[in-house]
């Protein structure tokens, strides 16, 4: 029993064991209780934060017709590692792709990741989806992921409704709500109501295993937030009228804007040439955008708010109103007209002389309006031309010219209504007078207006002196927009507007009215033609109108670029539009056909 001598060595051995056990416990206390970083790492390992994208809000017209909705599309996804026993021929047949195409797609997916899902075929059609879904169980490793695309069911209102696209890095930086790959409204209503339409993104916390495979929700979804769907927009647009207007403006350059004067709601808003808004959706968007952007007739330009046109004779009533308001003329004041021999501005019409304001509007007499304008700029109640011009200009601004109208449309331009300082700069202080800026009397020269401003002006006249900001959206969900309570009152007494309305009515009903060919017997309409000279040498055909005169329901502005007389194109188109809106059908087929079929694109 020699080894009994070494019995005390058991103490050494046991102590060693206990010391190591103690070290381990201390170490475990450190990593389990003190160091919290491991818990964080564990969460990062298993938790995936999956954004829930809300459906974007829908857009309706004034009669509840859908203008814009979300269409479900399907991406066929593949996880390469999971693909097994695949009938390649079958899948090629269903997707109508070649075996080479198949191999190419598989390679791309495998290059991206063998264990993560990637899109094998994007946006497969509903029919294909139907076939594939039936057979999906046979295609291991494949699954279908639904997504939504914006869909414009009537293919109308491209400029009005606008489109969406992926956010840019700059937008992400400005607004942290957006993440790479999100969509955002780029133009039109999609842009203006982005916040309301987009809804609120939700968040789902999923747990994944080491292969990144989904293995269920975290804590039964206790920390998940649901996506809140975007608000639906109810607009004042009349889809049928919009569609009709787009048809009338086919093969013409220009714009039609119609509004309900009682509320300021836009009934029709188009810029021509337009395009099918469905072209700017989904995977074809960038290609189509490139093509539209290169088109010389500029289909992407929103002429209704960005086109700045000389108003021509349509502006004459504004001068008359200022003259009446300032008292430099009365409704009975007559000026003489020497017809084409008039100076300094010729008259394009032959008519009686001298004539009053009613007759001057009916026949669009240039000399009469020059006289009115001269009387304004020579008003002895003010000391200088500059002061008188400012008064004139302020009155016009109260009618909505030379400024934006605070609408809900993005990119609205304000036209041009030069201030007196501009003329001081051009001609020198005190070196300009009525004669110098005489073109303004007939809506030519420096003054430029957008179709929206002109229709708003027509609505102001229809209302006898006030307007509401023209706007597209009546309500977001159940919440009404504020536009219809923002009454803008022009600085003109209503009695003078009655004078003008009378004159404009006679444009249709008068024996010599410039638009008499387009009157409707059962409807009192008021309007004004404009034949505006442009820098190209070709005249724009302008027309503004409203009806019925006693109880206005629609005000409209039509501009057809480089088409000739206002009475030839814009007036009949406006008249047809009014007929369509008031009676819902158009009886004057002969005029309608002539307008629809006219191709003025290359005038």
């Amino acid at each position, binding site marked *: *029993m020699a*080894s009994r001598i070494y019995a005390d*060595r058991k103490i*050494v*051995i046991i102590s060693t064991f206990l010391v190591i056990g103690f070290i381990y416990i201390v170490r*475990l206390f450190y*990593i*389990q209780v003190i160091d919290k970083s491991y818990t964080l790492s*564990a969460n990062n390992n298993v938790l995936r934060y999956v954004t829930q994208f809300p459906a974007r809000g829908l857009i309706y017209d004034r009669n509840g017709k859908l203008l814009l909705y979300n269409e479900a599309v399907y991406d066929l996804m593949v996880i390469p590692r999971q693909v097994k026993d695949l009938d390649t021929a079958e899948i090629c047949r269903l997707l109508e792709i070649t075996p080479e195409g198949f191999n190419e797609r598989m390679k791309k997916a495998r290059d991206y990741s063998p264990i993560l899902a990637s899109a094998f075929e994007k946006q497969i059609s509903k029919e294909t989806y139907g076939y594939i879904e039936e057979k999906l169980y046979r295609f291991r490793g494949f699954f279908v992921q639904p997504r939504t695309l914006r869909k414009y069911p009537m293919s109308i209102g491209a400029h009005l409704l606008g489109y969406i696209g992926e956010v840019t890095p700059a937008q992400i930086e400005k607004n942290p709500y957006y993440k790479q790959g999100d969509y955002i409204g780029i133009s039109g209503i999609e842009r203006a109501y982005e916040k309301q339409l987009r809804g609120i993104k939700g968040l789902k916390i999923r747990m994944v295993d080491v292969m990144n495979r989904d293995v269920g929700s975290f804590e039964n979804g206790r920390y998940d937030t649901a996506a809140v769907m975007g608000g639906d927009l109810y607009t004042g647009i009349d889809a049928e009228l919009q569609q009709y207007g787009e048809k009338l403006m086919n093969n013409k350059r220009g714009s039609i804007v119609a509004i309900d004067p009682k509320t300021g709601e836009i009934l029709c808003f188009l810029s021509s040439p337009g395009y099918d808004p469905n072209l700017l959706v989904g995977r074809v968007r960038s290609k189509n955008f490139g093509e539209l952007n290169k088109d010389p007739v500029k289909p992407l330009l929103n002429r209704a708010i960005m086109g700045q046109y000389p108003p021509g004779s349509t502006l004459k009533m504004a001068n008359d109103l200022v003259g009446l308001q300032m008292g430099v003329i009365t409704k009975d004041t007559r000026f003489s007209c020497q017809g084409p021999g008039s100076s300094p501005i010729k008259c394009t019409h032959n008519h009686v002389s001298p004539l009053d304001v009613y007759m001057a509007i009916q026949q669009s007499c240039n000399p009469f309006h020059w006289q009115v304008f001269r009387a304004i700029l020579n008003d002895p109640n003010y000391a200088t031309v500059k002061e008188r011009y400012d008064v004139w200009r302020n009155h016009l601004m109260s009618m909505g010219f030379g400024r934006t109208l605070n609408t809900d449309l993005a990119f609205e331009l304000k036209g041009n209504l030069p201030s007196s300082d501009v003329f001081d700069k051009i001609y020198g202080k005190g070196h300009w007078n009525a004669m110098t800026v005489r073109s303004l009397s007939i809506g030519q020269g420096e003054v430029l207006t957008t179709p929206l401003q002109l229709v708003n002006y027509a609505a102001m006249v229809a209302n006898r002196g006030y307007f509401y900001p023209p706007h597209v959206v009546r309500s977001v969900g159940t919440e009404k927009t504020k536009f219809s309570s923002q009454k803008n009152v022009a600085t003109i007494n209503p009695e003078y507007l009655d004078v003008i309305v009378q004159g404009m009515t006679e444009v249709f009903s008068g024996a010599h009215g410039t638009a008499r060919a387009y009157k409707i017997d059962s409807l009192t309409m008021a309007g004004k033609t404009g034949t505006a000279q442009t820098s190209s040498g070709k005249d724009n055909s302008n027309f503004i109108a409203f009806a019925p005169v006693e109880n206005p329901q629609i005000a409209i502005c039509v501009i057809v670029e480089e088409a000739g007389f206002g009475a030839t194109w814009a007036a009949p188109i406006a008249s047809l539009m009014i007929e369509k809106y008031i009676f819902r059908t158009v009886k004057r087929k002969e005029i309608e056909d002539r307008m629809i079929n006219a191709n003025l694109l290359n005038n």
Partner: protein
Amino acid sequence: MKEQKGIFRHIDRTLVLLYLVLVLMGWVSIYAAVYNDEHASIFDLSQSYGKQLLWIITSFVIALMIILTDAKFFNAFAYPIYIGTILLLIVVLFLGNVTSGARSWFEIGGFKLQPAEFAKFATTLALAHYLSALDFDNKKRKSQLIPWIILTIPAALIILQNDTGSAMVYASLTLVLYRQGMPGSILLFGVTIAILAIMALLFNQYIVIAVIAVLLLGFTFFIRRTWQNILKVIGIFVVASLFVLSVEYAFQNILEPHQKTRINVVLGKQIDLKGAGYNVNQSKIAIGSGGFWGKGFLKGTQTKFNFVPEQSTDFIFCTVGEEWGFVGTTIVILLFLALITRIIMVAERQRSEFSRIYGYGVASILFFHFFVNVGMTIGLMPVIGIPLPFFSYGGSSLWAFTILLFIFIKQDSNRLILV
């Protein structure tokens, strides 16, 4: 009945109880580690936990058989058992199946057997038999040498199987030799070698040599400065320096790249979370995220979703750490310490030299497994693939540890009868 009662009367209840607790905790941990909803029953035989139950039941049968065997049998047949196992280790080199790079398995009809597991108790038996023999005298050179040969043969064969981890277990049996009178200086020498090797790998070799020189120089102030002693110190310095240089050389020129990486990761010289460090890092995350009380039974996310590799075998301790927290890991560690200390205490009460030596062997082997396996999961040890006794999934290891332990329990139950 009376006879049977006699057989069970002197069984050490504490050891059997600790064994049962560890085995059952292991089973539940395996269930939690590989649990899936589709096979929720812990008795589902298509899953690891169902199979482990079979291993547990058969282990109980084996334990019972050992208890029923005559205690003298193991001492008498120590050599034949040892030689039989050695033969199996040789045969497996030629006929075995390869699993994760190691040719160490016999596969007989879907049933896997790992001879290396059984070599542990066989070697311990042979060692105990030799050391307890009447003609053993640790003053004789032959008596000093043969125990090393007994250890080295199975270890070498297992290294040939490319299972270095299992081979290292035999180093733990040097503790038995220490208890039997091997000079402590040899153990100290071994530890010094290990420390020098680690230093050589961690730091610049010349700095290490310089530090050795300074330490030895300081040492000479405390000894009698005779020529003999000074020569000895110089000799030690030369040997240590050569060793440091050769470690560096071996590391750079002999080790495979993946072995270098593993060592570097353990030494903290290299951070490689996707490669060699992945297991350890994920394992630490699993245990660390358990916190004080743990995430709760079947609530572990790390181990459940396969982040920790080999979670039911070598990394089973992670599941305990994640689901039962610091409380659970401490309990498991205390249970192991209790088992091992109890084995040593029981060994010390043996009157039979064979039983005592064998007991020390059992304690050393269990401790080594515990030390390396748990150390690996908490990042204190390199990744060495050896199981946690009674916990890890696997028939061979459970059977082998059961045999290892119950032979000792049987010997102990006979302590009053023998001698």
